[in-house]
């Protein structure tokens, strides 16, 4: 009962910060004798809803202090030139792979998986900027931050918005609700409700890295 309540109030739990989230899960596991599943955060990009306004890009850069001229998130215009009226956009950002090559190759463990949340993130102080993670990432979504001189990727705002109990900046800023963020391990989470009813794909699944980002493509029906 208490367990269910906690799950449903997912965002409120997040409000306590990732540290307390871990401990909350732990105490529940102790209390019920059942092992609480670790969270597995994912995100949906719905191509049907995205209008290419780039509010998400702006919000991300502001919240995460990404230097001028650099991005963690980019909205690419993929409109087919032969059908210019059918606008199509796609989110370019870290796919938060479950089997992340960037984590595997990093010689200094600067690029790592956060223990509490499982999010692929960075410890900029340990990064020697060898760029191995950048060339190893099959999605080409890492970069060396000009200011910190360390590699960087979208980490679901782990140490900015998420730490403050808010949704990631891009999700928060999307007026069209094209982005949904949540715990894929939580059956009741809104993200799972959407994934149950909508067709969705992973980007370049042949790499076998199991991305946590899901894309709902525009599918043309009829003539």
């Amino acid at each position: 009962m208490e367990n269910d309540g906690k799950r449903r109030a997912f965002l409120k739990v997040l409000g306590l910060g990732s540290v307390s989230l871990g401990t909350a899960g732990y105490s529940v596991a102790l209390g019920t004798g059942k092992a609480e599943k670790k969270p597995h955060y994912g995100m949906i990009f719905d191509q049907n809803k995205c209008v290419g306004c780039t509010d998400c890009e702006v919000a991300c850069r502001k919240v995460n202090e990404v230097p001028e001229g650099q991005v963690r998130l980019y909205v690419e215009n993929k409109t087919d030139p032969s059908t210019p009226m059918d606008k199509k956009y796609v989110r370019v950002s870290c796919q938060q792979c479950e089997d992340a090559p960037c984590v595997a190759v990093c010689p200094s463990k600067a690029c790592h998986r956060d223990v509490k949340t499982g999010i692929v993130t960075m410890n900029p102080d340990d990064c020697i900027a060898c760029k191995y993670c950048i060339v190893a990432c099959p999605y080409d979504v890492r970069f060396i931050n000009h200011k910190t001189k360390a590699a960087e990727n979208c980490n679901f705002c782990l140490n900015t918005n998420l730490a403050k109990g808010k949704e990631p900046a891009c999700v928060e800023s999307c007026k069209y609700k094209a982005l949904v963020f949540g715990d894929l391990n939580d059956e009741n989470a809104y993200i799972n409700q959407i994934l149950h009813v909508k067709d969705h794909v992973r980007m370049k699944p042949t790499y076998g890295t199991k991305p946590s980002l899901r894309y709902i493509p525009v599918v043309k029906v009829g003539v």
Partner: protein
Amino acid sequence: MNGAINYTYGFSHGVEWGWPIAVYLLLAGISGGALIVALLVRFYKKQQVDTPLLKAASLVSFVTIALGMVFLVGDLEKPLYFWKILIHYNFTSVMSIGVMAISIYIPLSLIMCFYLFEKEISVVLAKKSQLLGYFEMVMVLLKKIRPMIEVLSVVFAVVICAYTGFLISVLVRFPILNTAILPALFVVSGLSAGTASASMVASYLFKEDTHSSDLKTLHVIEWPIMAVEIMLIAMLFVSLLVGNEFQQTTTVAFQSGVYANLFWFGVMGVGFGLPLVLNFALGKHVAHSHMAFYLSGMASVLGVLCLRMFIIYAGQTFSI
């Protein structure tokens, strides 16, 4: 690939690992290759004396790997943080494994230099008698384990050559790099550059006759090494040609543009063609001349540099 949705934009904008890495890969190859051939000749001929070839190879391997480290560390955006990889060791990273191998290999090649330049080092240290005393003490110990050090040196020299290939063959985004042939190609091309460098230094610095028995041996094994190298490059090409659609598109790298020129003029022309012409096409007189000896040696090294450059640049240019 997923036809429904896709993106073409990437954040890296071009070649992330540039020429310093290519030069490092060449230097590591020369270092490992030189030590491997010289020690194998020693084992094979059961040599007990210290030959000019072994002297040259030890010197070459230590100097090139040390210089290589300068290029490698210099290419980091934060070179002063280099030590971080020694304390945050990551067993799944080829780079970490390579760093561990290098930190064993460099001392090994240094010890090889100690054996072969003991007299010279003693002369230099003679002014500081205390240091000389320590050095002599250490040498007494080191000499007892020389056969073991020699075998370990060969083993780690192979590891160094091969790991540089594995380092880049794990990069799945780049079809030219992501092949199993690369580590083998790097070992073999390292052998050819190492052979050439060691022979040239043996002749130039240590006055080994270019027709001495050791250098003749190297001269003989040079051609089979080259043949294997060409075969591996052909295998790489064919594996791309018969591969999936992305692998197939990368074969352009061999067919047109600057990289094709680098490959055909640099790797094939200078690296393989020039030595062959100098040694076989212009008659015995030219083939036995000093000029031909140094020219074809330098051509081999240059060819291997071009190969590394080609692999690094063309490899990263053609991504999926």
